[in-house]
């Protein structure tokens, strides 16, 4: 027998197998079918955790996912998972579980001192207590609060397990596999509809597994098992146990977490621990059942005090007695079932304390009408219950377990995830789904407030038939199996009045009736204020057992009805979700895709150092043997390029193929400068504005034929520019004959720059590329290496004689090898993005730091490129007063007065004597490099009234880096300002 509290027979557990596990190091045994809570209760353990604020000893309140108290850490080491609910955790052989929020031990917890000073820790205490003195906040209060806050601790190690994501589609999603859900799934499944039946439990059946009720003249659990067997055989139905639907999103999209391997010691190789499913459902039935709520009375949180329905579930499903001497405190008929079931199983029921004065008494039991519990005793577990009879007489009864039933709340959370507002149903004294819920979602069974088995079966069938009719799927109404249809018969009792001591409402966040009264006294009486002031419902269980009681107590204090008091909105997720499940496969190197250029492997072989540029990995520089500092490599690459020739992979630049009879006119509209006049076989530098006049992107565009162009964009903006062009083409000028397609990935492209660039390329290109045949800004189709089709552009980003040559991507690897080979006797280098940056800053070309989304062409010194003779995006608004201020920012160059002094990127420019305050800020350094030609740092900068300041001295101040350098303002063109090199 697995523990002293295990009943000798019954239960949906496999007694033929024993599973061994530990709790706080102590060995226990259970059976397949057990949860951690059921196995611990069977082993005589009632104390499973400490409460959040007062560190009160707590045991399980429930037998399901609503559990506020029995939160434990499962597993150990990197697989340790804090704050899991013992009431839903399946045990397995070797499971290690540990209690939380206690030190040094669960039975003796020093922080329980909080419980003794509770008068100082009432609701809102932190708003009042930690206010002053202010300087205490950072040093004292915050560290103190941080140490005390939270329950379990993370392992601090990377989770070794995988998580997955997926997408599923169905006609009907049935949420919950209790009687309503099973009947809905059966109806839709038999009709041939695509059905997903998701249930958070590992054993479908819902409350039927926890009750002794009969369905179709057999035990309810047997009926459920038979239906599940039929459903499992249907090819059109997918059964998803261990799957919690966590949220209802727009247009029939539901989120669900499937716990694939939480019940195993570790996931099988390659398998995920959990899967986050995105379910596209044309219709959904919410059959999530209901959650029992307790009654607030002094000492109602002691281990051993449990929901009556949970107590019944432990007895019927897990064959576990909650105690040796059990008392019950109920206000409704359902609670009496626990008494009957326990008595039937031979558990001693010492008293049934029934708040309802009238009605029949249970035969053979001490059924006290009109009585209430006013106190309990027992430090680490219940020892006795004190009740007040209807005549006011008090009596203390020895009892080690007390089952409480204050009625049931429909699990309507998903109906609130859009704009649904629950409706108060006086008949069952509970909120039921109201209007405004997710379209296509209908509640059935207890989730809809129908609390009998018959009501569940009938409404499950009805909601499924309605959904199928909506979808045009013919269905036959299956016969309803015979089942009980008992009325709820409840007398609302929220808390026991006239009793002394703390009565708990939200057990996870330690909110008491007194806290509600305090909130009322301080005028936080609305549902939302109440929540925030007291933290009612803000714990991980979202107040599933406590919210309605808290609202009812507040309603009692204000004299308003509960309906008027209203309720806060439930939000996804329905139950807590591990961050890992939300991340899915997107972890580590798979966090996002990586883009590699066609010659990436070649660069790797050369020992290149790579840098992330968006998703791309680009060669940053390629160190040679003996180079120990990146600057050595970069300086060498820069000098060699200007001295002879350098090769650079520019495949990452965006390339957009633009064709059509009106392509030229189209380009005139999207570029600030004119393109339609460009002859075939030539290219031009263009600047593209946003409609607000700010520079969006730049690049060269070549005309390959009368009606065929290829546009280059910056690497970063390739996608955004394409989107913008499609907007212009489809939304603004839909009658222009223009077709667009991205060819970024199709071509491998290399820049060849330097005085020997032409000589090198003459060995590669099959055609004549002399200056006469292929002048500056020429572009066109050529062949390379004896017939391979290629594109050649004579453009320069470095200020040198330069070309860009492109071949179909599959030949990129071959081309770079051929280029390097052809350049061997020129001492050609391959340079990376660092050298590229140096070369372009030396030449004063704008790039990332200058194209910052805040500057106009005028600011960049390119104002003359903006043509006002035509209509183009952004031209009109670029003429706004604020953007054309002559004293506004202009692109300038910056050099240190002392060549040995360094510059710091991002430094701000100030007049020599000006105080270092924002009002004196005249501009900033956008890009800074070391120029090996000039032998000192240089930078580009935006400077107010920049042109007029060329030649003057200023200070470059960086308060973050703590640097200050005297600088001279120069032209942004540090090298070859006349551009003689590139026309060579």
């Amino acid at each position, binding site marked *: 027998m697995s523990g002293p509290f295990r009943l000798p027979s019954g239960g949906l557990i496999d007694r033929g197998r024993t599973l061994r596990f530990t709790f706080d190091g102590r060995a226990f045994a259970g059976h397949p079918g057990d949860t951690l809570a059921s196995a611990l209760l069977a082993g005589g353990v009632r104390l499973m955790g400490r409460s959040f604020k007062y560190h009160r000893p707590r045991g399980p309140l429930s037998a399901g996912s609503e559990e506020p108290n029995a939160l434990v850490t499962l597993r150990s080491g990197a697989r340790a998972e804090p704050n899991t609910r013992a009431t839903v955790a399946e045990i397995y052989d070797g499971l290690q579980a540990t209690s939380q929020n206690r030190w040094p031990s669960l039975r003796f917890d020093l922080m329980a001192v909080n419980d003794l000073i509770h008068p100082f820790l009432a609701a809102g205490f932190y708003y009042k207590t930690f206010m002053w003195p202010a300087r205490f906040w950072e040093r004292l209060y915050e560290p103190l609060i941080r140490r005390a806050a939270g329950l379990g601790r993370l392992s601090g190690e990377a989770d070794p397990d*995988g998580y*997955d994501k*997926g*997408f*599923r*589609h169905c006609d009907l999603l049935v949420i919950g596999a209790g009687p309503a859900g099973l009947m809905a799934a059966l109806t839709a499944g038999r009709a041939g509809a*695509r059905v997903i039946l998701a249930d958070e439990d590992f054993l479908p059946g819902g409350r039927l597994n926890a009750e002794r009720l009969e369905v179709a003249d057999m035990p309810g659990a047997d009926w459920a098992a038979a239906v599940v067997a039929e459903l499992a055989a249907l090819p059109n139905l997918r059964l998803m146990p261990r799957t919690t639907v966590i949220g209802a999103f727009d247009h029939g999209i539901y989120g669900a977490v499937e716990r694939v391997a939480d019940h195993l010691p570790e996931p099988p*190789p*390659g*398998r*995920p621990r959990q899967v986050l499913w*995105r379910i*596209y459902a044309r219709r959904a039935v919410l059959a999530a059942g209901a959650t029992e709520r307790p009654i607030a009375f002094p000492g109602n949180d002691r281990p051993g005090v449990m929901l009556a329905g949970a107590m019944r579930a432990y007895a019927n499903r897990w064959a576990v007695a909650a105690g040796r001497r059990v008392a019950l405190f109920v206000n409704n008929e359902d609670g009496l079932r626990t008494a009957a079931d326990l008595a039937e199983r031979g558990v001693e029921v010492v008293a049934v304390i029934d708040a309802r004065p009238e009605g029949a008494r249970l035969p053979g039991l001490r059924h006290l009408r009109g009585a209430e519990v006013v106190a309990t005793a027992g430090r680490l577990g219940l020892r006795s219950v004190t009740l007040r009879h209807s005549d006011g007489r008090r009596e203390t009864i020895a009892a080690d377990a007390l089952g409480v039933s204050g009625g049931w709340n429909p699990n309507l959370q998903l109906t609130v995830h859009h704009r649904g507002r629950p409706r108060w149903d006086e008949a069952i004294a509970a909120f039921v789904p109201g209007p405004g819920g997710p379209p296509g979602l209908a509640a059935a069974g207890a989730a809809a407030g129908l609390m009998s088995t018959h009501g569940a079966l009938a409404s499950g069938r009805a909601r499924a038939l309605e959904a199928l009719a909506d979808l045009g799927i013919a269905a036959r109404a299956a016969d309803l199996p015979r089942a009980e249809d008992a009325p709820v018969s409840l007398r609302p009792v929220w808390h026991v009045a006239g009793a002394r001591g703390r009565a708990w409402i939200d057990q996870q966040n330690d909110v008491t009736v007194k806290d509600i009264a305090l909130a009322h006294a301080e005028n936080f009486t609305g549902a939302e204020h109440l929540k925030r002031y007291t933290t009612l419902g803000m714990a991980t269980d979202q107040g599933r057992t406590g919210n309605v009681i808290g609202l009812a107590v507040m309603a009692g204090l204000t004299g308003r009805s509960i309906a008027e008091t209203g309720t806060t909105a439930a939000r996804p997720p329905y139950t807590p979700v591990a961050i890992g499940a939300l991340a899915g*496969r997107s972890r580590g190197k*798979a966090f*996002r*895709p*990586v*883009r*590699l*250029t*066609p010659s*990436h*492997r070649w660069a790797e072989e050369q020992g290149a150092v790579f840098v992330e540029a968006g*998703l*791309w990995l680009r060669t940053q520089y390629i160190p040679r043997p003996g180079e120990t500092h990146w600057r050595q490599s970069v300086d060498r690459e820069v000098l060699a390029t200007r001295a002879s020739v350098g090769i650079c992979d520019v495949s990452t630049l965006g390339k957009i*193929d633009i*064709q*059509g*009879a009106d392509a030229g006119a189209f380009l005139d509209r999207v570029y600030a400068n004119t393109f339609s006049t460009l002859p075939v076989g030539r290219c031009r530098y263009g600047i593209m504005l946003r409609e607000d006049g700010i520079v969006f992107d730049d690049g060269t565009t070549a005309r390959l034929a009368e*009606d*065929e162009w290829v546009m280059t964009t910056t690497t970063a903006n390739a996608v955004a520019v394409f989107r913008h062009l499609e907007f212009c083409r489809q939304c603004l000028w839909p*009658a*222009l*004959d*223009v*077709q667009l*397609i*991205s*060819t*970024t*990935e*199709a*071509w491998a492209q290399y820049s060849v720059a330097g005085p020997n660039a032409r000589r090198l390329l003459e060995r590669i290109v099959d055609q004549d590329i002399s200056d006469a045949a292929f002048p500056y800004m020429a572009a066109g189709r050529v062949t*390379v*290496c*004896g*017939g*391979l*089709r290629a594109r050649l552009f004579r453009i320069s980003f470095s200020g040198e004689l330069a070309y860009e040559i492109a*071949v*179909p*991507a*599959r*030949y*990129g*690897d*071959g*081309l770079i090898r*051929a280029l390097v080979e052809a350049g061997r006797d020129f001492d050609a280098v391959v340079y990376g993005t660092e050298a590229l940056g140096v070369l372009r800053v030396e030449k004063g070309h704008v790039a990332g730091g200058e194209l910052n989304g805040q500057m106009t062409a005028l600011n960049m010194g390119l104002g003359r490129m903006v043509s006002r003779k035509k209509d183009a995006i952004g031209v009109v608004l670029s003429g706004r007063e604020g953007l054309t201020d002559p004293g506004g920012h202009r692109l300038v160059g910056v050099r240190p007065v002392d060549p040995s002094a360094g510059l710091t990127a991002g430094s701000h420019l100030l007049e020599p004597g000006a105080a270092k305050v924002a009002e004196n800020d005249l501009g900033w350094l956008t890009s800074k490099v070391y120029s090996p030609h000039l032998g000192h740092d240089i930078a580009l900068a935006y400077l107010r009234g920049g042109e007029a300041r060329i030649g003057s001295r200023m200070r470059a101040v960086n308060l973050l880096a703590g640097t200050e350098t005297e600088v001279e303002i120069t032209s942004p063109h540090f090298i070859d300002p006349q551009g003689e090199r590139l026309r060579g």
Partner: protein
Amino acid sequence: MAEPLPPRTPFGLAEPLRRRIGPVGIVERFDLALVSLAERQGKAEAFATAARAAGIPLPGPARRAEAPPFAAFWVAPGMWFVEAPLDTHPDPVAALKPVFGAAASLSEQTDAWVRLELAAGDLAPLLERLCNVDYATAPDGFATRTLIEHLGCYLIRLGPGAATLLGPRSSAESLLHAIETAAAAIA
């Protein structure tokens, strides 16, 4: 014919990739040419005539059709991707340009994509972990753009257990990693 330069697959290899993970087979195709074919404004009739003359099918939205040696799938209003064997169509733009003249815009797409043929008894369990396409109910010949781990791919259903996936060439390795991880999870 010896090529002027040695071609490399998107994985940087000389030979196409072949992998098997549990029930899933992945075979890379490196022998097909791909070209975008877009109808010019106001040239609908000439465009259709030229396509007919060339024997190029023009299926409707979300469809692919075969007419050997060509196959084509719809990618955007008025635009198709046309497939042809690379050995007969090494420069597909040059081959089709004379047929369509000014009625179409053609652009080479062969090397913009990594092309993976997926095979399994049933591909739905794999694909439901990768993308939001309802593969089980899609008809054969269904062709759609879809997102796989942030990558815009084309998925073409050839049958319940056979599909073609075209992913961006530069992210071939990331795409393969995603497929292999998903395949291992259902193995």
